[in-house]
């Protein structure tokens, strides 16, 4: 559906280097990356606002690398929604249809349908400046969707909203894409958003697409240390791996971790903080890592608690507030850190 081949671009302080990407019809694709990685630039290039220095952009089997934005049939939604301030809500939504020389009745009908679908019919004659962030976003989506775009591009569409509205609209975006079968490319720096929305995620760092995969692959099987750290894995270690009876034993110096991997020799490994279980009493079981340690730091990440445990190596673990209280933990408590061999990802 969308194919990007060997895309290069230098623009202001941003750059994109050798981007190769294929996005399927109806897919919800999230481009995840830190600020300044070139995410918006990538999106604007798909839309045709910038032309690439090198490379090609194909949409629906057509090479649109040099096509102007108006010939690409793409919907674009910015972080601030960019509603036209001199037009009311209905005029904003109709804008694209009026350009397409559609009959008046058809414009009325399509506008009414899309506004009903997004639940904004009652806002018809309001000026954009009087709308809440959530309402503005829906108007922007309606305005983009009414012309049946081949793909909807969303640039940090949730980041300007309060957290409650964010949660609600995240669900609505997902439902919308599923119901309408619309191809979406959504750019964000927010891991939770990427995890919740993406059928697949592409991690963009320093202008390079570092990894493309399902949320499961990105968050649990990151390709390298940099991606691991960006997707929230604090527990990254280096060690010497040797394989015994089909199970890898990785020597970190102070302790030895069991993992499931074929790699031997010097390796890096990571464990997601939420894969770690905290126990008051240790009981050994097969293919399970168990280390005794001491809680050195506790910080609240409501509704979760983040613990740092020194067990020869420092481990970061995330547990619920409820289990934190039940285990009667505080800084200095003696605990056991436990995680499955299958939770260990060797990079």
């Amino acid at each position, binding site marked *: 559906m969308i194919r990007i081949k060997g895309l290069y671009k230098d623009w202001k302080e941003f750059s994109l280097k050798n981007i190769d990407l294929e996005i399927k019809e109806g897919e919800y694709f999230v481009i995840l990356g830190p600020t300044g990685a070139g995410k918006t630039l990538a999106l*604007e290039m798909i*839309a*045709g*606002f910038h032309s690439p220095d090198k490379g090609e952009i194909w949409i629906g089997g057509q090479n649109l690398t040099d096509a*102007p*934005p*108006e010939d*690409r*049939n*793409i*919907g*674009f939604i*910015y972080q*601030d929604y*960019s509603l*036209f*301030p*001199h037009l009311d809500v209905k005029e904003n939504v109709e*804008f*694209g249809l009026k*350009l*397409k020389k559609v009959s008046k009745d058809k414009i009325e009908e399509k506008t009414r349908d899309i506004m009903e679908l997004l639940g904004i019919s009652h806002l018809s004659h309001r000026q954009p400046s009087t709308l809440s962030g959530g309402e503005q976003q829906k108007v922007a989506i309606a*305005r*983009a969707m009414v*012309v049946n*775009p081949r793909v909807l*591009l969303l640039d940090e569409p949730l980041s300007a909203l309060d957290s409650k509205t964010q949660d609600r609209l995240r669900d609505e975006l997902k439902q919308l894409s599923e119901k309408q079968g619309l191809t979406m490319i959504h750019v964000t720096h927010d891991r939770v958003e990427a995890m919740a929305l993406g059928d697949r995620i592409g991690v963009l760092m320093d202008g390079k697409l570092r990894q493309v995969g399902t949320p499961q692959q990105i968050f649990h099987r990151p390709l390298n240390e940099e991606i691991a750290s960006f997707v929230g894995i604090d527990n990254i270690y280096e060690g010497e791996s040797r394989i015994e009876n089909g199970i890898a034993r990785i020597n970190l110096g102070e302790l030895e971790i069991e993992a499931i991997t074929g790699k031997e020799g010097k390796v890096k490994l990571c464990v997601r903080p939420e894969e770690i279980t905290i126990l008051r009493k240790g009981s050994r079981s097969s293919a399970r890592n168990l280390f005794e340690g001491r809680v050195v730091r506790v910080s609240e990440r409501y509704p979760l608690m983040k613990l740092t445990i020194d067990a020869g190596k420092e481990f970061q673990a995330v547990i619920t507030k409820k289990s934190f209280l039940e285990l009667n933990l505080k800084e200095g408590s003696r605990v056991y850190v436990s995680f499955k061999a299958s939770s260990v990802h060797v990079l």
Partner: protein
Amino acid sequence: MKKTTRGGKHGKMLVLFGIASFLIVSFVVIILGEPVFTQLVFDLEGFIETCKDPEVLNCIGLTIGTSFMATGIAFLVGTPLAYILARKKFFGKRVIESIIDLPIMVPHMIAGIAIFSVFYRYGLIGKPLSPIVKFFDAIPGIVVAMLFVSVPFFINPVREGFQSVDPRLEKVARSLGATEWKAFYKITFPIAYKHILAGIGMSWGRGISEFAAVIILAYYPMVASTLIYERFLIGGLEYSRPVAVLLMLICLGIFISFRSVRK
């Protein structure tokens, strides 16, 4: 306690600012109001007669008309430049901005001499155009002089207007199927229209008020300022003031209507 002291300080500052504001507004009002008051109270008949004088009416009509022509040209040629200055970064942009501002700084008598030397019958532009258009002592001469002095007054507010339009609005319009042209006249232009109206008003007003730059190339046909000057030389204050007051009232009327449209 602290709060009250602070509030008090602010209060004092505002009082001083208020006094300063009053002084500057009075300065303008007294200068412009005195002749109007004197004329309307002490010589209403003379004023009414002036209002009926065909020479006066012709001059004022000519002034308003030529200034509109100059503004029209500034609009057609200046709007694209204002847009480029608002949107693009390029080498030499500062230089172009300074050049556009020059007519504000150059003494207008000097501007008049410069305009004359370029547009008179043997001038750089006047000569090649001489078979088609005559500038010396003719309406085109008045228009070019007015255009020269009013260009910055049009371009600067319009550039600010375009700067205030988020370029992403144009991008979204493009993604919805608008060509570059359509995005400009359906989005950018209407959003910036208040600034454009301001530019038109300023440039038009500046044209009407121009005297020095106009008279050197085109003393005739007389614009209002030239007529007022001539009448002042011939008959002093009493002969020139009624025309001045009439022009002032007409301008005031037009400016007030401009302002109300902008709101």
